[in-house]
């Protein structure tokens, strides 16, 4: 499942709902991304996440389906927030579950790397130096490139 929402999420509740009564799960990996109070050497007072409603949901569902096809996952969940967020607040949640840990870890990293480089979200942060749009990192592109397949372009 995927969700794009303004409100916060409860990691414990999401995991419980996610596992449910599925007793075939041996390994569950959770990634939570949080707003840091420092970025590129400057204090961050507040952040606003802009997104492209419609395309965001479509892209998240596509990539989730690709992860389910590439790894033997029992289930996977992506929740991504938008709007105004303070340092310490949660931004994104990715949960992957599988019978064995390797698939759960790999699929989770794949989804997070993908989110960082393809999901249509943009961070705007307020610092003592003024407000600014966060720049994309080439290290994120490099991380995402690990998962490229011949059968897929871009």
């Amino acid at each position, binding site marked *: 499942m995927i969700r794009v929402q303004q409100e916060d999420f409860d990691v414990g509740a999401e995991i419980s709902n996610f596992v449910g009564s599925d007793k075939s799960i041996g390994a569950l990996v959770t990634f939570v991304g949080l707003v840091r109070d420092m970025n590129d050497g400057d204090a961050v007072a507040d952040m606003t996440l802009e997104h492209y409603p419609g395309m965001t949901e479509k892209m998240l569902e596509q990539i989730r389906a690709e992860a389910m096809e590439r790894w033997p996952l029992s289930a996977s969940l992506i929740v991504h927030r938008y709007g105004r967020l303070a340092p310490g607040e949660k931004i994104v949640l990715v949960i992957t579950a599988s019978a064995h840990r390797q698939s759960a870890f790999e699929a989770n990293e794949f989804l997070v790397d993908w989110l960082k480089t393809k999901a*249509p979200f943009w961070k705007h942060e307020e610092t003592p130096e003024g407000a600014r749009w966060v720049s994309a990192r080439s290290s994120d592109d490099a991380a995402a490139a690990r998962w490229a397949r011949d059968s897929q372009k871009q």
Partner: protein
Amino acid sequence: MKILYFAWIRTKIGLSEEVVELPGDVSTVSDLLDWLRQRGPQHADALEDESVVRVAVNEEYAQLDAPVSNADEVALFPPVTGG
């Protein structure tokens, strides 16, 4: 055609979206960018460096040679920074 702008492309152009009627010689994403740059100095500035402009046609990423028509929704935005 409906065009959406996001992040600093939106703030530089000063619009979050606009509806335009394409001239007949605009048939690809590349043509569209050339045409938009002629609409004014803000468009020209925001779209100057194509290496930092990402394009989606009907909510899917598209390359410069992808076809576009008046029926499409096109979005222009900088490299994403979510996650």
